[in-house]
């Protein structure tokens, strides 16, 4: 999963809330993974594939650029 926009990466919906996802979680297509704040707007990023989160590349609150890697997701096998 790469960032589609320039902005600030947030792993959680609110400052003290638990993160949307962490390594080892299984995610579904359309599940919210993080928020990228750009121009005061909170943009929720959704998973494009179903599978297991194997890596989170960025820290909460970190600025990210276009195309920067955010998550690695191992796709679950299709039935």
């Amino acid at each position, binding site marked *: 999963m790469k960032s589609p*926009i*320039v*902005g*600030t990466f947030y792993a959680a919906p609110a400052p003290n809330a638990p993160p949307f996802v962490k390594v080892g979680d299984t995610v579904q297509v359309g599940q919210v993974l993080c928020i990228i704040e*750009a*121009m005061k707007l909170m943009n929720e990023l959704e998973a494009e594939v179903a599978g297991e989160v194997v890596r989170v590349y960025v820290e909460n609150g970190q*600025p*990210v*650029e*276009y*195309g*920067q890697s955010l998550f690695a997701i191992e796709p679950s096998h299709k039935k």
Partner: protein
Amino acid sequence: MFKKILVANRGEIALRVICACKELGIRTVAVYSEADRYSLHVRFADEAVCIGPPRSSESYLNVASIISAAEITGAEAIHPGYGFLAESAYFADVCEASNLTFIGPKPDVISLMGDKNRARARMAELGLPVLPGSEVIPSEEAALKEAERIGYPVMVKAAAGGGGRGMRIVQSPEEMPHFLQTAQNEAAASFGTPDVYLEKYITSPRHIEFQVLGDQHGRVVHLGERECTIQRRHQKLVEESPSTQIDKETRLRVGHQIVKALEEVGYTGAGTVELLMDENRNLCFLEMNTRIQVEHPVTEMVTGLDLVKQQILIAAGGHVPFDGETLGLRGHAIECRICAENPQTFAPSAGKVTVFHEPGGTGVRVDTAAYAESVIPPYYDSLIAKLIVHGKDRKEAISRMSRALEMFIIEGISTSVPVQRKIMADPDFQAGNFDTHFLRRFARDGENSS
């Protein structure tokens, strides 16, 4: 003074702004598309943010990405360079709303000058001579009627135009329907609006422009003229300052008129007033470009000023530190725009530069972001370098340019260098005897091509 500036551009002009910032002790943020990852502006800026895929509409024209990049890096001001968002009143407005200083004029002045027809009317009102012309043309009948009043030949021009697009020369009423339609189509495709107007067409014109600087304290000064008559398809190839056609008295008189008009408008920042000179050396207002120009270095060479630094200092609230009326022009400067293109057909030539050797020596300046092994992407402007020379007079400047062109070695792509060598060697060019059709002698360059 600003601590950090974001440069919302690419190529040589992004690098030019970064140079000015470095000398002023200001940190810089480069923005880049995926096609420009290995560009020099990315390398020499203090920070760099990738803002999108290669296509300009998704990167260098993407307002949200650029503002966001400024916010995440803590930049205080944005320098737009030329092209892209440099003359977007909307972008200037969004910068202001986001508490970022847009290095350029106020949004309302940008939008006045961006509407070529409204700008012309306002300048006429403020005492500048203008070419006879029409309002926006509502119909073919209106076009024919207005053309009759103005007198053929007339030029159909895009109201939101620039860069030679959306322009057609109409010699007779029979040609009007076709060229009106093609100009409207091109205007709609290039500028998002099909609005066009008519203007008297000067058969053998010269392009003269005046450089101005205005500060936020109500003062505007001019820095003399540049002659930009050597063009192909309405795009400049060679520029020089001073012009052989402007004497000291004319420079002072026209410069004074321009300064008075722009003080009235509340002009701030660097800008260029473009004028057309007819066969009898009468000057008429054509349009104003509300940004730094590609050819600004020729003015820097003859005035000794750094115009990009001046833009930044003015945006930070500084005063224009001299009096334009007493500013002398020293020697003669010429610029050649080196473009990646086929020298016969002028078709763009993108690709990998295999050899890149810049000329140097006394009085030679090269502004470029190209280097050996660099790739000229097909997505953007074909300008790859500006070669500028300064000499004690025009004769020395021409011979210096000739030898500098000879010593400019670029391999892997075709460039405009061969055409520019021919121009420098041409007896009419050397005598100062040319008009905007000059290049026809070297290549077929149909005015109404495409």
